[in-house]
């Protein structure tokens, strides 16, 4: 299988390098053929690997490819760990990536940076695969930062736009805050366990948990808690959890295909994947899991609320992504890692679908992104309409859709989880995810109705040009709509209850809520038919109905609500003033510190007083000394006599 793994990883890399360096020579067609074929090959082989592991009962493989460096007894390797967890991610990543590659041919058709774009997204595919296939922390960190780099390049793809290059710098820096924690966590692991290798580290989890780290001198903290929280800070950056979420909405400045690929389906889920991968460590720290679940719950609920007041089609979906990532994080915190991974998978399909559908709308309207200038697109764009409907239903968890299985069971897992005995955690987590369902349905169908139904609010010129997008755009939509609709049916039992992940995910028996739920699980059909008895269903229905009522039936009401609750509206519209805090607080503060240290420290104190001060003092002293050198022999003779007398007297009297 090693040849498979290498091909899966290296094909997109080779395509990216060739397209990036020789884009001019291979031309536009060459660029898209090369990258599409390379990613297609990766996708086919990934599916083969998945088949081998799942259907053919193959065993997980852990192989080193080459030694990066060895020093001080620390082996730093580059290698692959391919188990079922990895295989699932490989399939999701390469499949969505392939869809996005095809879609890009249509979406970026008129862009002058066509080759550059294909080079970047292929490079992204390579980086993401390196991340998910890593068998050690070094390579994980490499992939982690490499996807960050590509994200930076792609958000700033249209580098002439001030907003784009602001957003990409912001994204990189906020991610670096997360990575700051992440690298400290890795350092802690290496220094306690003496290894970067997953297998070795996981094997020594118990001994790590038995040690302490004195973060505050005098009060030892459990090493595993410190390490897991540090690692999770990394996940908060990459998976945009509050308060490190601020970069994701701005990242929508990038072209829509990458919003789908990077900022919805794959890269932002890297944090979720990482925590699931590290489950053998997180299981040893209840404190860290409490942090995870609380952060996730806050993100899931409060970010969803912002989605309700946004008017930019991509930003609404971005806030939805934040909220859904929060759901996954909550599941991680409840030790329901499989549920998080399951939602990650279904979300990758339906969220990529929604973004690509939004992109289809955006090009149809000549790069208009404001939903107040849309409406009634159903009849002009039937394929986009129906696929977007599938995506929306999956997002709100309509019974039977893929999102239904993943989200419904995720919420149930929270309800049944071991946190039940820990009221303050439980009463933050459970209500958040439950009420989040209503919020999700509300913003999703607000978007859907305002874009596809109701009056046509675009100008006549635009309306006259409206038409369905070309096949390179619609085919990926259809191909993504299929799994969005049905994949839950076939996979829910295997992934959640039939130990699909095997040894790749470790759960303590006292935390194992999915095993408990599995006892009362009687298949997909039973789950769907019982769904009407759950509060989740009614909250979903209420959300969708509210959206219909407010935005189609009585469009005057939202404006009235906005006036009535202007304080709340402002709070949401300004995103809880988090951006202001970062930009006016941290960024400006950092610059002020820099100015102070430079002007007062370097220029005034060191250079002004010490360096040039010394020079001036010496200059002044020299000026005085110079007076002694009169050039008259008698002065020197006199000085000599005085000096000689003093020296002699000293020798006579004091020796």
């Amino acid at each position, binding site marked *: 299988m090693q040849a498979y793994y290498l091909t899966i990883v290296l094909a997109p890399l080779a395509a990216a390098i060739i397209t990036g360096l020789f884009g001019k020579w291979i031309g536009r067609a060459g660029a898209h053929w090369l990258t599409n074929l390379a990613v297609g090959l990766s996708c086919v082989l990934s599916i083969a690997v998945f088949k081998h592991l799942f259907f053919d009962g193959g065993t997980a493989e852990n192989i080193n490819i*080459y*030694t*990066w*460096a*060895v*020093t*001080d*007894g*620390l082996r730093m390797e580059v290698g692959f760990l391919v188990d079922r967890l990895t295989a699932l991610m490989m399939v999701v990543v390469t499949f969505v990536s392939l869809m996005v590659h095809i879609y890009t041919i249509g979406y970026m058709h008129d862009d002058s940076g066509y080759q550059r774009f294909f080079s970047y997204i292929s490079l992204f595919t390579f980086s993401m695969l390196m991340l998910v296939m890593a068998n050690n922390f*070094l390579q994980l*960190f*490499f992939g982690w*930062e*490499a996807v960050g*780099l590509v994200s*930076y*390049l792609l958000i*700033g793809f249209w*580098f*002439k736009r*001030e907003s784009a*290059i*602001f957003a990409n*710098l912001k994204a*990189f*820096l906020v991610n*670096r*805050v997360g*990575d*700051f924690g992440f*690298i*400290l966590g*890795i*350092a*802690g692991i*290496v*220094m306690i366990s*003496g290894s970067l290798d997953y297998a070795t580290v996981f094997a020594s989890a118990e001994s790590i948990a038995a040690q302490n*780290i*004195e*973060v505050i001198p005098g009060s030892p903290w459990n090493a595993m808690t*410190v390490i897991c929280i540090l690692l999770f800070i990394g996940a908060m950056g990459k998976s945009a959890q509050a308060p490190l979420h601020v970069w994701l909405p701005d990242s929508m400045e990038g072209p829509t295909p990458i919003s789908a690929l990077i900022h919805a389906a794959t890269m932002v889920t890297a944090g979720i994947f990482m925590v699931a991968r590290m489950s053998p460590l997180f299981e040893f720290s209840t404190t860290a899991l409490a942090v995870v679940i609380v952060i996730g719950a806050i993100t899931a609920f409060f970010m969803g609320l912002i989605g309700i007041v946004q008017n930019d089609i991509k930003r609404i979906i971005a806030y939805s992504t934040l909220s859904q990532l929060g759901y996954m994080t909550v599941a991680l915190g409840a030790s329901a890692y499989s549920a998080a991974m399951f939602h990650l998978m279904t979300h990758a399909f339906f969220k990529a679908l929604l973004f690509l559908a939004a992109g289809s709308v955006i090009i149809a309207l000549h790069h208009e992104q404001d939903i107040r200038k849309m409406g009634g697109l159903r009849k002009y764009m039937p394929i986009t309409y129906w696929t977007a409907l599938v995506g929306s239903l999956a997002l709100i968890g309509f019974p039977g859709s893929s999102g239904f299985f993943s989200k419904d069971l995720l919420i149930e897992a929270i309800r049944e989880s071991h946190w039940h005995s820990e009221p303050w955690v439980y009463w933050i987590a459970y209500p958040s995810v439950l009420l989040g369902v209503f919020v999700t349905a509300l913003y999703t169908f607000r978007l859907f109705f305002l874009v596809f139904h109701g009056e046509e609010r675009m100008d006549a010129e635009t309306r006259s040009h409206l038409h369905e997008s070309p096949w390179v755009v619609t085919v990926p939509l259809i191909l993504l709509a299929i799994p969005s609709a049905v994949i839950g049916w076939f996979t829910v039992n295997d992934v959640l209850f039939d130990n699909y992940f095997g040894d790749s995910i470790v759960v303590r028996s006292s935390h194992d809520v999915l095993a408990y739920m599995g006892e009362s699980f009687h298949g997909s059909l039973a789950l769907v038919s019982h769904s009407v008895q759950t509060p989740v269903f009614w909250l979903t229905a209420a959300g969708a109905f509210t959206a219909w009522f407010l935005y189609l039936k009585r469009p005057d009401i939202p404006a009235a609500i906005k006036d009535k609750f202007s304080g709340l509206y402002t709070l949401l519209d300004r995103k809880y003033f988090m951006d202001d805090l970062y930009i006016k607080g941290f960024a400006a503060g*950092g*610059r002020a*510190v*820099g*100015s102070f*240290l*430079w002007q007062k*420290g*370097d220029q005034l104190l*060191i*250079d002004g007083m*010490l*360096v040039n001060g010394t*020079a001036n003092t010496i200059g002044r002293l020299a000026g005085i000394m110079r007076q002694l050198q009169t050039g008259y022999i008698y002065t020197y003779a006199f000085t000599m006599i005085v000096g000689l007398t003093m020296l002699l007297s000293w020798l006579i009297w004091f020796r």
Partner: protein
Amino acid sequence: MDLSPYLLSALIWLPIVGGGLLLALGDGGDVHSARAGMMRVTAFWLTMLTFALSVVLYMAFDNAAASMQFVERISWVAALDAYYYLGVDGISAPLILLTTFITPLIVISAWDTIKVRPAQYFAAFLFLEGLMIGVFCALDGLLFYAFWEAMLVPMFLIIGIWGGEHRVYATLKFFLYTFLGSVMMLVAFIYLYGETGSFDLFGFMNAPLTLTTQKMIFIAFLLAFAVKVPMWPVHTWLPDAHVEAPTGGSVILAAIMLKMGGYGFLRLSLPIVPDGSDYFSGMMIALSLIAIVYIGFVALMQTDMKKLIAYASIAHMGFATLGIFLVWRISAGMGAGLGMTGAMVQMVSHGLISGAMFLCVGVLYDRMHSRNIADYGGVANTMPIFAAFMVLFSMANAGLPGTSGFVGEFMVILASFKASFWYAFLAASTLILGAAYTLWMVKRVIYGEVANDNVASLEDLNIREFIVLGVLAVAVLLLGLWPAPLVDMMNASIEQLIQQIGQSKL
């Protein structure tokens, strides 16, 4: 015939003699004359030949040996028992390779940008190259000092003659700072000579010294080396020197001369006065961390690109000194070696990256005669190839994995976690600060709409610039993706050094 006993001498004297040749022949005062052209070509091939010799050194170098290799030892000043004593180990050999790798690139980059006295300019760099290799090879105190001080002269001339507007202030500051520091080193050498009766560095290392003496000697060395690194608070000469130096001068200064300080600590301070180093290690770590954090903030606010990169250099070199002095804070197990290897890798990598960054600024300066960030904007529109290089090197400067900039920082951060959580915390802040100051500059210079007519009329890289930056890009990526060859070279020597300094002299 086995020529290896003369290899180091050849590496030192080939460029120096060649430089003398260039000086003697001269360019006839005309930049465009055939003679000036011939001098350029000669200079280039001399540096290439030196590089080829260093490749021979690399091939013949025994990674497994911890002791000195290619040793040459001839009596030099018999009256003082001083020897012409050369040798390299895993600590000096990588720095020699760095020197011989960077110098030809400087010659190419200066090809048609130096309009005044080109022959003398190239001669100065050849002298400098030989003398710097001399420092890395010398195993005799007097010889070391001679190379160390002689190095200042060509550097002084490079800034003083080919420098910018305020070059006189900058050269004086540079010279006085570094000279005052190194005089104290000479005093320490003379004292050690008095104790041991020779200038042999190994004699110094074996000399029993009291703690008080060790502290005094450490301070004397510190003055010499801290200025060179430079460490906070004796760093303020560096931004001025960089700003005024011509591109080649900045490159050699950042890429190699700063490494003299780190090398000095490893070669002299640690093994000669281990207990003194131990005594001051807390202070050294504190100064290193100040360099990383304080200077990171200062770099953020720079408006001059060269100053920004100069400050970034100080912050990055903080990792080198941090990695070196962590050894005293790690009692057992993994960490000490990791820190020291990280420090060495950081020095080599910083040589490549800062050199590349200064060359990038040089490319822009040659076209627009401004180093001011505010004068730029949207360069990517007119110079896309250049922009790609600049972004790559900036990412390396920000320590992105896959580039050499990551390797050393990663190792040092790992090691510092072993010593203390807070060391690692402060050191890792470079992930944020380094990215902030570097990428903010990239945003303002490279990205955006074309800012003005000057930017609109920029021309992309010419073939020579492309080769120089391309070679550096390959090196930065290669070391980032596969640092093993470099690390393997150092391991044995670093292991031995750690063992050696573990033995107290008291």
